[in-house]
Every structure is written in C-alpha cells, then in structure tokens.
C-alpha cells in the first residue's frame, strides 16, 4: 500500500490487481484458523467453514482494489488552496439565516413533538441517546478541551447511579434530592481521581483512569454489604411529577423532556465554559502543558476543575439512568461503556459541541434501528474507530479554532476578501 501511488503514471491495472491478489491471499491465510475452523473440544468435533474463506478472499480483494484506486486518484489530484465545495456549502449553512433557521425550526419541532408521534419504545431509545449526548459533552470537557484522556469515565456514571439507588434504598431519598447529591459525589470522585494523577500525562493517565474505572466496578461487584454485589439494586423509583405518580408511558415522556432540558442546559454551560477563563486555560493545557504553566496558569486547579466538571455530568446522567431503568448492577458500567463515550467524543470531533451531539445520536440510534446488524455492531464500532483515526482524526465536525490567520495578501485578495483575512471563528 505504501508505494501504490508513488509514480502516478507508472501504476498499471495489472500491478494493482496483483497487489490486491496478494492482499487477499494474506487475509485468507490470516483468517484461516479462526474464521474457517470451529472446534468443539468436548465432542472432538471439527466444523470447516470454507465459505467464510471465500468471502474473505473476495471481500479483501475488492476492498484493496477500491483502496488503491482511491489513493491513486488522490495523489493525481493537485492539492488546491480553495476550500472544497462541501466546505463552502457548510459555511453557507452556518452563516446564512434563511438556510439554517428553517433547519433549526424543524429540528426543534421534531424533538418537542417526538413523544406524541412515536411509541413509548421509540421515546425510550431517544432518551437513551440523549443521555449519551450529555455524557459525551461531559467527557468532552476532560478529553476534548483539557486534553486529558480519561478511559474510566464510566466510574463517575456509576457513582451517580449508585448514589441515587443507595440513598433511595436506605433513606428513601427522592429523585430530585438525589440529582444534585449524585452530581456532587461524582465531582468529588473526579477530584479524588484527579489528585494522584496530576503529574501523569498522555498514555499513563489513560491507563490509570482505566484502572480507576475498573476498581470502582470491581468494588461494586464484590462488596456485597454495600452495593448488593452482582445482583444489583432493583425497584428504584422513577422521578415523580410534583408528587404525582406517573404511568410507565407518562414517566417515559417525562424523562424524555427532562433529558431534553438537561441537554440544553449542558450545551449552554459547556458553551459558556469554553469561552471562559477556565475554558481557555483548558485549551492551553491541552496544547502545551509547559507553555501553559509558563503563562501563569495554575496547572493543579485547571486539571482538577476539568475532572470535577466532567464527572458532574456523568453523575447527573447516572442518577437519571438509575431512575430510567429502575434497576442497576455493575455490568452496566464496564470499560466498553467508557470506550463508547470516548468514541462519541472522538467521532464528533474533540472539543466540538455540535459534533458530539451528532455523533452520540448516530452511534446510539443507528445500532438500534439496524437490528439486523446488531451482531456486528461492536465489530463495526471498533473498525470505525480505527478508520476515523486514519482518515479523519479531527472528527465529523472539527471544532473551529480561534486563531489569527496570517494569509499572504495576494491569495486572499485573489479570492474573496471576506474569507481570508478576518479572524476565523
């Protein structure tokens, strides 16, 4: 694949086909034992599935050909300075009210009227997706803004869920009382995790946070007297509506609007945070820790606030999760959940609010509606993470960076004066 496009004229179809043939042979060799042979060690049975080998061979051959064709075309095309047609269209959509106002109106109407037109089941799924939007936005503070790779985010989610469940079980605390307590406890845990890892960065931080998340889950699983172990806690009450007990359908709709409210609140807060003093400090920390310290930013405080504020949202969503499912147990809080939330942030584009919202909706809703592919969901999920990192590491919607652009004047004047010279927002 490396020399596929080196000389754009020299690559012939025959060479491409030979390359693809080799690739396909390699993958057939690679998948031979795992994909073709299935053994049953007890019955001493062996099943040969040659059809899989054929499929892999043909599939990798075609994919490799397509891949070579694409890289070939890309190297042939001269890189242009002008933004692509798609980028211009996107900019127009963002800028001109007559385009984006109807769009927004439509979106607002759909979200508001959603529970009236769709079943309880659909509303439930939508609520889940909205929960992930908030989780994604929360993690976005830690990973996207402050650049601290947190692989144990689900721990704070668990803290929130268990604080509501336990407080309700022992003291009969209601949903609305538990919501701030859950958020506060999660923030406390965020600081608790933040303190020891202040000195770490990058990969080490990722591993420690992962370890932290697993420790929390393992404690919940094993400390039976405290958390009721693997059997979990059942009969957690749904949130009441000013003292009224709602029916199941009513509660679902109520939770849906609650989540809509929380999403709007989160977007508002995160947006304000991003442009605040502390938000700028986070971004500076992400870009260069040493330079950031040299500018007089208190590293300890900045990191701890990032952890605490990020964890707060997870705690809140945790409380809502417990209220929504009315039953929680440790397997809901595995590393995969953390990976999922991280994937939302990464796919959406680190630091971009709109991107995170879209990615959360896509990642949670798509598998729900593609039930046929449910089996392959995680497989595709892993592949998408890799592919995104290779081809579009900035995510679906890359966050516009506040930067002064120093464009050479002739280029700017030659095109459109409005685009080139102004500070880019």
């Amino acid at each position, binding site marked *: 694949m490396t020399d596929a496009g080196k000389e754009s004229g020299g690559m012939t179809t025959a060479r491409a086909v030979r390359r693809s043939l080799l690739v396909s042979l390699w993958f057939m060799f690679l998948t031979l034992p*795992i994909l073709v042979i299935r053994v049953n060690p007890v019955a001493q049975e062996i099943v040969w599935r040659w059809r899989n080998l054929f499929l892999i061979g043909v599939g990798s051959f075609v994919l490799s050909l397509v891949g070579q064709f694409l890289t070939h075309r890309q190297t042939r095309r001269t890189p242009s300075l002008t933004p692509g047609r798609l980028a211009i269209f996107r900019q127009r959509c963002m800028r001109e009210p007559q385009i984006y106002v109807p769009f927004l109106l439509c979106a607002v109407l759909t979200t508001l009227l959603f529970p009236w037109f769709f079943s309880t089941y659909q509303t439930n799924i939508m609520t889940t997706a909205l929960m992930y939007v908030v989780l994604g936005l929360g993690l976005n503070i830690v990973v996207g803004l402050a650049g601290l790779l947190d692989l144990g985010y689900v721990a704070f989610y668990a803290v929130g869920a268990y604080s509501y469940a336990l407080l309700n079980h022992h003291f009969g605390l209601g949903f609305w009382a538990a919501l701030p307590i859950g958020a506060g406890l999660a923030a406390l845990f965020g600081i608790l995790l933040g303190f020891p890892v202040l000195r770490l960065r990058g990969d080490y931080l990722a591993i420690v946070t992962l370890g932290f998340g697993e420790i929390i889950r393992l404690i919940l699983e094993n400390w039976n007297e405290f958390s009721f172990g693997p059997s979990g806690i059942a009969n957690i009450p749904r949130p009441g509506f000013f003292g009224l007990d709602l029916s199941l359908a009513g509660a679902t709709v109520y939770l849906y609007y609650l989540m809509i409210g929380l999403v709007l609140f989160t977007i508002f807060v995160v947006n304000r945070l991003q442009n605040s003093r502390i938000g700028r400090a986070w971004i500076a920390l992400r870009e260069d820790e040493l330079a950031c310290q040299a500018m007089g930013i208190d590293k300890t405080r900045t990191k701890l606030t990032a952890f605490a504020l990020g964890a707060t949202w997870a705690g809140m969503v945790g409380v809502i999760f417990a209220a929504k499912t009315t039953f929680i147990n440790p397997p809901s809080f595995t590393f995969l959940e953390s990976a999922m939330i991280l994937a939302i942030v990464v796919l959406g584009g680190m630091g971009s609010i709109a991107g995170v919202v879209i990615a959360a909706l896509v990642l949670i809703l798509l598998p729900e509606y593609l039930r046929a592919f449910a089996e392959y969901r995680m*497989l595709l999920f892993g592949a998408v993470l*890799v592919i995104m*990192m290779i081809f579009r590491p900035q995510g679906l919607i890359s966050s516009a960076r506040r930067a002064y652009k120093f464009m050479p004047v002739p280029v700017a004047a030659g095109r459109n004066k409005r685009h080139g010279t102004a500070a880019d927002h």
Partner: protein
Amino acid sequence: MDYFLELFLGGLTRGSIYALIALGYTMVYGIIGLINFAHGEIYMLGAFTGLIVASLLTVFGLNQYAILVLASLVAMVYAAAYGYTVEKIAYRPLRQASRLSPLISAIGMSIFLQNYVRLAQTSDFLPFPALIPDLAFMEPYAHIIGSAELVILLVTAMVMLLLTAVIRFTRIGRAMRATAQDKGMAMLVGVDVNRVISITFMIGSALAALGGVLIASHIGQINFAIGFIAGIKAFTAAVLGGIGSIPGAVLGGFVLGCTESFATGYVSSDYEDVFAFGLLVLILVFRPAGILGRAAAEKV
C-alpha cells in the same frame, strides 16, 4: 511453609505469563512510544489458534509432546502475522499523528479483534485441553508445584534468555536498540526503521501467543474476552518494572504475579483484580519510571 511455597511458585508461574505478554508492550513502547492496546487481544488470538491446532492434531492422533510444540509454534506464527497486520493497518498510518490518535486506534483495534473472535468462534467459555503432560519425577512435589507450572517457568526462562541474546548480539537486535534510542538517527545510519518496528511487533506478538497457549492449557478454559484483563495486567507488569526495559518487564511480571498470588492466598480472592489495578495506580503515582526505569527529563 508449604502453603507459602505453593503461593510463591504459583505467583512465579502467573508472573512469567505476565512477563511474556509484558515484553510485547515494553518493546513496542520502547520503540514507538505507543501503548499497544490490542496486544492483549493478540494473546487471546494466540490462545484460540493454539486451541484449534491442538484440537485438529488430537483428532489426527499425534502424541502429546508433538501437539504441545506444534500448537505453540503455529499459534506464535499466526500471532506474529496478526501483530504485523495490526501494526500496518492501525498504527503505521498514524506514525506522525498526535499521541491520542494511535491510542484510540489501538482501542478500536482491540474491540474489533475481540468481536472478530466472538463472531467467528463463540462467546462461551471453551475448555482448553491440558497440553502439558504430568511428569513422573514431579510426583513427590505435586503439592507444591505442578508439572505444568514447572514447564511454564522453564519455557519462559528459556525464551527470555533467547530474547536477551537476540537483542544484545544480533544485527536486528542492534537495529532495534538503535531505533529505540533515536529513530531519526537510526534512519540516517541506514536502519530500515519500518522493518524494525514490524519485527518488534512480530516478536512481541509471538511471545504473547506462547504465553496464551501455556496459561490456557494450565487454566483449562478460554474465552474471547480474556485478552482485556490479561493485557491490562501485563501492562501493569511492564510499567512496574519500568516501561521500555526488557529485564524490567520480567521483574515486573514476577512482582505482580507474586503480589496477586499472596493477596489472594492470604487476604481474599474476590479482589484479585483490584490488587493488580491498585498496584498499577500506586506505581504510576509514586514511581512512574518503574523499578528499573530511569526518570527522563523532558526536553523543551
């Protein structure tokens, strides 16, 4: 005393498997500074390949020693092939990217490989045949150390010596050390850095697969998800000894194995994994450079 010895030797056995996997982490980290999250999955793939080959050969009726050797060898070859492919697809295009990208790509690869095995094989636990035969002369010591444990310890020790020799005395070993020290400079003096990285991945993967086959045959069952916990623990071992250092990985593996063994033996077996993770957090917080590692000052 016997109980103590049993726990100690059990810990060493466990630790030697961690060490075998940790070598892959530490070698890769030493050369390209990447935590290869998919390494645990390579270990799992190795164990599965070993199981499949062993089952095939049992049906053909080979003798036990031949099965053990062949299954391990095939598993190592396949793991090396997987390691090579994973590096080429998921990491090589990201060589110049920011540090976060390859890590996330590695997480994606890990999830992909886990589900690949889950879909292609099964999500249940599969029984793994005991490939290592009971040795007659070990009978009197059976209450302290089993034959399988002895074989695992011996094989691991041999492999470690071999690896040390390769890295110290051969051409490719020298190239690996040069690449680890300074990639750009190594390139300038004519080392094919890409090839060295590929070979590093292949060696690390083969060692992980060997560990996978040995421990699976000792424990007796495998599953598509075993790579995650084993990978994290092996990574802990690598960090414990000082990541990037090969003797460190071995030492870290033994320390971790013994800690776990004593903790489960004397305290409680419920929290086995908590001890490992707790140790990891403590080490990273108080001595991030590890036991044998040196703290490197950051150049600005």
